[in-house]
């Protein structure tokens, strides 16, 4: 059972990763990435790491790739690309070389130390009950690693503030360009939302509503 689940989800992960590489449309590539993330999340469940599995889907599939898609759609780069053109000359052979050498390193590590692939005994065993791992993670993060957690939080806050500062409009003598303000947001629209909204009836049934 475990082996079957592992094989199927590993196949899904690899197919998704391959899809990201060969998909000609960026949107398709992003969707293949979601497929890979799902496969990884199933692998987490297989390891009794249910919390990580859920967070994997919520954070990566639910937020990160959605942001990718937003950017792809809003920047209008969502067209099919010609993969025959190499944007940076010589990039592909170098990438192939690096990929092959990484694979070689992995294989050597696996073949030399058969019993403990990660170098630590029993690292693949569950730490405890599956129901327990949310509590364990929380305890570890907020006792032993609380400093790192707080630092990460500060880093993220700085990133947010930095983004706001960079994106905000500069006024006064330093203003680079005249800023066009869309006024529609502050104008009252008397029509908006008047009357009953008949969305469902209008679509599904039509005449007798």
């Amino acid at each position, binding site marked *: 059972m475990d082996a079957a689940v592992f094989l199927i989800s590993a196949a899904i992960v690899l197919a998704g990763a391959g899809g990201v590489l060969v998909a000609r449309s960026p949107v398709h590539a992003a969707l293949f990435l979601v497929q890979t993330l799902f496969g990884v999340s199933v692998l987490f469940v297989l390891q009794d790491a249910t919390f990580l599995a859920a967070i994997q889907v919520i954070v990566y599939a639910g937020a990160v790739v959605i942001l990718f898609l937003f950017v792809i759609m809003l920047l209008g780069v969502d067209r099919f690309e010609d993969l025959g053109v190499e944007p940076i000359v010589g990039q592909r052979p170098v990438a192939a070389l690096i990929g092959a050498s990484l694979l070689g390193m992995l294989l050597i590590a696996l073949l030399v130390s058969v019993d403990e692939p990660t170098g630590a005994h029993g690292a693949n065993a569950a730490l405890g009950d*599956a129901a327990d791992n949310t509590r364990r993670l929380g305890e570890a993060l907020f006792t032993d690693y609380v400093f790192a957690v707080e630092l990460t939080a500060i880093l993220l806050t700085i990133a947010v503030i930095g983004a706001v500062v960079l994106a905000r409009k500069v006024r006064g003598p330093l203003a680079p360009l005249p800023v066009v303000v869309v006024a529609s947001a502050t104008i009252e629209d008397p029509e908006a939302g008047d009357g009953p909204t008949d969305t469902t009836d209008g679509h599904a049934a039509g005449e007798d509503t």
Partner: protein
Amino acid sequence: MIPATLTAPLVLAADPLLDGPIGPGIVGIVLIKVVLAFTLLLVSVMLMIWFERKLVADMHNRIGPAEAGPFGILQTLADGIKLFFKEDLVPDRADRMVFKLAPYLSLVPAFLVFAIVPIGGDFSGDGTVTWFGETTYLQVADPPVGVLFFLALSSIAVYGVMLAGWASGSKYPLLGSVRASAQMISYEAALGLAIATVFLTSGSLSTHEIVARQVSGSWNVLATGVVPFLVFLLAGTAELNRPPFDLVEAEQELVGGFHTEYSSLRFSLFFLAEFMNVITMSAIAVTLFLGGPAGPILTDTLGWVWPLFWFSSKVFVFLFCFVWLRATLPRLRYDQLMDLGWKVLIPVALGWFLLIATMNVADDLGWPVVPVVLAGVAVLVAGAALLAGAIEKARGDALAELTDEGAKG
């Protein structure tokens, strides 16, 4: 607790049913539960669509569906059959693969969420029912990360809307889907924070456990102090794209929104998913805040009927309110929607979450409750004042800029 690795290799179901050796009988019971949940949801969607149309008609002083079946109750079925036989169009400029995939990305999460909702079981005991001599929960699965599973699926549901709009290859669906996904992502944060308060009071993520805690203590709507419940309701309504937050399909502006180009069966899948989400969101609200199937068990014979009855009645109240909102409230403007989400709901939910967390810590460490609460409230009020000041300043700046522009132009 029995180590999960010994019993079930996949731990997404911590049910007493799966504790022993798994034989064909147990597989049968699981299958029955799955099929029951599936049919129950489909039938209730059918009734819900009819109920919504009938109730809105009553509130508008119309008759509403009246032809098919008694009181028009079969109208949904007739509509479904009609949709089924309509021509299935794929626009020329559509991305065919994604266009066909999107409706399923909407529908499947809507179905799956219902799997974690405990719809019955006698929670004055341990919340189980006994079928054919086997003890089991009355829910398809009780994953240890239950409510996170709900959040994960609701973040997947965004894909259905977003990709449907993009793949249609036309501008109104694209505008609608960008609106929809921005709205759903914004309100997911408030929704998550409201739910996090429930985690704090219940101390568990599993839906079964959350209901059990509410039965032994007080219902979460009171235990968390009502505010998270209200935030959950508002954010949930926005997450469902229901009126008054249905800008996604504002027909005056966007034709039909993200599903403008969809017809026939694919449209009906979106439609189904929308109503299914209304039902599952109500069920989740009942589970998290209103004690799920808990309630007095009034008779000894057929005692298992009562929890089901209480659960359905509570869900029904929510469904009624959703329809009521739709029939009475006008649609919000887009900036009002975003203001409500980011400037009101998220700060309120976050502040309340911090307050509850402080009280929990004070309780653990044996600090006196009253000064801690007072200090906490003082900090929150100071924070709120700062936020209000910042918002006011930003608004003033924007206005000044507008008048400057006006003076120049």
